[in-house]
């Protein structure tokens, strides 16, 4: 028999064998489930904003009084959610909003806001949140010890860095996030880097 015939016969046998090997029915589902969880950073924001529209409950509004270093009357949002690594993440000041007393009332009644307050309550001093500066997807974030990741908007970071007691936001730096009575960040201060997360 010719080489060509042999090659064809081997190919046929291989194809016949392959036909009988069927992937488990849930395999494709499992692969795609993984793909659904993994999205590029831009999509993370788009879908996050989309989700924000759907799940209004995760949006909490806050405002800063005149005594706060932010020196602003605008309210800003704090959104409690998860990042792509499934770490609890609190997005601060994603959008500035106009001051409205009704919103203030809504914030305090919001379950997610209570959850956020409960999270920082676990710290010794909820006005002084110890954390480590990190950079994730080109965003500056602060891993607050035992609470989760705090992502501050660029505007907010810039604002805080212009405050008199600012700290340089360099990855790996130990800092304190200073919060007001409503849990909103008012300043970033230096912290002893030897003590990464106080026990």
């Amino acid at each position, binding site marked *: 028999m010719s080489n060509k015939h042999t090659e064809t016969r081997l190919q046929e*046998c291989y194809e016949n064998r392959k036909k009988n090997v069927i992937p488990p029915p849930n395999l494709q589902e499992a692969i795609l489930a993984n793909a659904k969880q993994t999205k590029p950073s831009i999509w993370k924001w788009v879908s996050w904003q989309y989700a924000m529209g759907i799940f209004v409950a995760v949006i909490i509004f806050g405002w800063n009084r005149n005594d706060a270093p932010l020196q602003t009357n605008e309210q800003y949002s704090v959104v409690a959610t998860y990042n792509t690594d499934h770490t609890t993440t609190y997005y601060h000041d994603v959008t500035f909003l106009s001051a409205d007393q009704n919103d203030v009332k809504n914030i305090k009644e919001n379950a997610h806001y209570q959850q956020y307050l409960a999270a920082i309550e676990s710290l010794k001093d909820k006005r002084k949140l110890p954390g480590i500066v990190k950079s994730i997807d080109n965003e500056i974030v602060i891993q607050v010890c035992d609470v989760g990741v705090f992502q501050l908007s660029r505007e907010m970071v810039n604002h805080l860095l212009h405050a008199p007691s600012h700290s340089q936001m360099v990855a790996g730096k130990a800092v304190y996030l200073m919060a007001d009575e409503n849990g909103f960040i008012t300043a970033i201060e230096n912290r002893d880097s030897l003590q990464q997360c106080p026990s």
Partner: protein
Amino acid sequence: MNITIGLKNWLNIAESNENLMLKYADSGELKYIKEIVKRLEKDLYHYLFSQVGPELASDVCQMAWEKVIKNRRSFSDTGTVKSWLFKIARSALIDELRKQQRWQVEEFDESNINDHSTPSKAQFDVMNEIEQQQRFDAAFNELPFLQREAFILQQEGFRLREIAQITHCEMETVKSRLRYAKQTLTTLIGETREGE
């Protein structure tokens, strides 16, 4: 340009895996990776299944796709998605076998060829296709890991150079592995090559 796209749609010409992957890397849209998975899942699973059986094949398959999804931006259109996927899967497979202390391969084992009973000329004549298939399956399963791998990859349409890249070896080595694999298979299924 629009005419080309229109014609493609009209003729329903399937978009290449490479274009789909580039679009997926760019947009992260699920529909692109879904189509790639649909096209290549069976080929990859069969390769892994043939090398390590169903259980580990399923796990490694998932690991490989996870890596593809995670590293989608590092895909370069200079190669095919299929060879990239197989390369990733092979590395994951060998890592897993090493973890389980099951990674033990011999490059060539010519003695294998003569260990099996070769059908006589009379047997060839009466051997029907079903019997031949059964002999093929048995011989295929008994091929050494690297020879079976080279054979599978060639049947999956990879060129010698691609097989060499996927398996991290020289093209000459790939040729030898293929020669031994085919020699074993053809002998055991009762086919003979001219001049042999």
